[in-house]
């Protein structure tokens, strides 16, 4: 092949390769979309930062309520409190907006923050003890009193609650006044969760599998209660999850957790100690 032919062939080959590259829709699309994704993410991050700044601005003039004022406020009213993170459920994204639910508490009472918008970075900063100022709406869902549609800013300060023992109050009407608090239960006995004698169930009726919420029954003073290991708070790889999976009917246990409410008391247990 002479020089002219080589030039022609190589030109054709290069052109064909170029054409192939252009024609490789998957590669091209992927690259474009990746760039778009990054752009979108950056945009979302910028929006979130903007949102956080807005939240800070919005919270600037808000009068902070005492726990007593919060407790007395009617459902659906706007509330602003200062409180401290005690635990958090897993962060997730909804339509590009990060969310997480937080168990929070100050020296006087507890506040459950349901699906509070926060970025993943903010979520990482909201460690146990972190002080936040929160503005939102007091809501009630199936008996659980909580703050929804919340905005927050992180403030200086730290407080980690010690568990309040409410074992003796389990059967009393007074128990609801401890709603959402970090609490403990002592000397309770593990009871069978079903007719087959299981010490715990994956999902409330045993229809689930590992990774789902755990339900187990414990008794004290002749009364039996159903407690939960909430998988979004303490998942399958946590000590408490494994501890409950290891329970046997008849075990004596001490427990800690948060006094969540769903059509009655429904503690979210975070620690189990078999005696």
């Amino acid at each position: 092949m002479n020089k002219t032919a080589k030039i022609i062939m190589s030109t054709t080959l290069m052109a064909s390769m170029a054409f192939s590259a252009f024609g490789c829709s998957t590669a091209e699309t992927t690259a474009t979309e990746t760039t778009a994704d990054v752009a979108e993410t950056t945009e979302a991050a910028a929006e979130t930062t903007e949102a956080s700044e807005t939240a800070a601005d919005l919270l600037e003039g808000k009068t902070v309520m005492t726990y007593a004022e919060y407790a007395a406020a009617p459902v659906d009213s706007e509330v602003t409190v200062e409180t401290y993170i005690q635990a958090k459920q897993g962060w997730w994204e909804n339509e590009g907006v990060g969310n997480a639910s937080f168990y929070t508490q100050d020296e006087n009472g507890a506040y459950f923050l349901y699906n509070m918008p926060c970025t993943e970075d903010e979520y990482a900063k909201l460690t146990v003890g972190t002080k936040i100022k929160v503005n939102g709406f007091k809501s009630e869902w199936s008996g659980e009193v909580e703050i929804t549609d919340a905005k927050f800013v992180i403030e200086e300060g730290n407080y980690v609650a010690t568990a309040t023992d409410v074992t003796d109050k389990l059967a009393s009407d007074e128990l609801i006044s401890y709603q959402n608090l970090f609490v403990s239960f002592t000397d309770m006995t593990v009871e069978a969760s079903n007719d087959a004698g299981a010490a715990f169930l994956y999902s409330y009726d045993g229809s689930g599998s590992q990774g789902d919420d755990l339900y187990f029954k414990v008794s004290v003073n002749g009364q039996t209660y159903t407690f939960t290991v909430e998988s979004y708070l303490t998942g399958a790889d946590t000590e408490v999850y494994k501890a409950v999976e290891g329970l046997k009917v008849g075990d004596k246990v001490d427990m800690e957790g948060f006094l969540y409410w769903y059509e009655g008391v429904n503690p979210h247990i975070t620690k189990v100690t078999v005696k």
Partner: protein
Amino acid sequence: MKKLLSRFLSLSLAAACLTSLFTGCHGTKDTNEFVMPDGLDASEKYEIVFWAKNDTNITQTQIYNQAIADFEALYPNIKVNIRLYTDYNKIYNDVITNISTGTTPNVCITYPDHIATYKTGDNVVVPLDNLINDKDYGLGGKEVKFDSPSKSEVIPEFLNECILDGQIYCLPYMRSTEACYVNKEYVEALGYEVPDILTWDFVWEVSEKALAKNPDGTYVLNGKDVMIPFIYKSTDNMCITMLKQQDAGYSDDDGNILIFNDTTKEDLKVIAEHTGTGAFSTFKISGYPGNFFNAGECIFAVDSTAGATWMGTNAPLSDIHENQIVDFTTEVRPVPQFNVDEPKMISQGPSICVFNKPDSGEVLASWLFAQYLITNDVQIAYSCTEGYVPVTSKAQDSIEYQEYLSRSGEDNSQYYSVKIDAAKLLLDNTSNTFVTPVFNGSTSLRNAAMQLIESTAKSTRRKQVVDDAFFEQLYEDTKSLYRLDQIAAADKDSRKTLGPLPTGSVVLLSAIGGAWIVIIAYFAVRFATKKRAD
């Protein structure tokens, strides 16, 4: 406690949805289009993964396990590994995650809306038309080792819901609709009779009347502190159904977003009015309708027929303490209507899709298992766990199923009357059901429909001003949050012709064409020269 989990999961769908919305071609790049193999190689071992969803109902779990055992007995070379979910959204999230790594399950229970997103990947989901029609291994095929229904025995309305872009991408598994569960005694105490078909006006009127209070602040109707006369579980369905009943826009087959119209606004104004008085609330704001209903704190509870076992005084399942449950008669009615002569209700329920794999034999094995799930044994057993209906006439018309229906009320478990009434509601109204158009992004639109009602109700409860300006802002915020303008644009882009080529491409293609012409001319000249020399 059964339903609590879903509250924490209830919004998680959108997480994966947005990630995937515009990510076409994110599929398993090495998987070719499925081609039907010559047959199922009995000497080959296949292990298939099945992601199933149950309603946190252990009987449903047991039915899945029994189905797998029975199927494996028929096909000893196929092993089915089940992974159980209690939430469709989590399945959706996990499928999306696994598409990118090529580790999707073989078979999964899902919604057509979700499949619309799955199939944006190349050859991710197997179109079922050829499999269904295959004379050997298709529905009713002669090589199938079980009593498979024929294609004509699949209820046409349900099969049509599985058609996306002209191809069948799934098999219906179970179908349900929404029902309005009515406390008969409360309606009568207020001076009314429960009509066969409720109208929205009737429900609003009775609900308002139920708000009368005693001097001590309790409600006259129930003597309690709590009374929410009308609670709707799925406000996305509420919005969609209201619009459909009024022939108003929601979306169209081309993926155009039509929901932000004047009819929607008028409906939202009515919802705001009745939320403001306390006559109406939603699941997301207050809790499960069934809990209020069973406690005598609600008159009209709208929830899925697939949740019928949680509704009523004698409901076999309950999240509230037995001493909170009051004694009353539950009437099961279609959701409220604007035109009683042309009732319209949504069709919903899970479907079964088959994912593509490099080994066509594995896909065929998956298809056979998917097909097994619509046999009478599975269909009848599963539908009897809730107010579902079987998806085949073969099952619906069977002696076994007809006997089940006829024994309504014999007990409060298998033959629980409310559950069977709910199933009959759909059986009697299959031709009155509708579905919304499915496209990549239709899930976000559905979420937006929900958001419009929830935001209106919440703002009303919080004493914010809900006027025309509010709705204008709500429309804009909702479009932005769910990126609905982008969905419309993206969907249109994917459908329209590509238009004129960019200049660079024209130049490149011209160069290629020109180069080939020169090559051909060069060899032609050489050939002619050589020929002449010869």
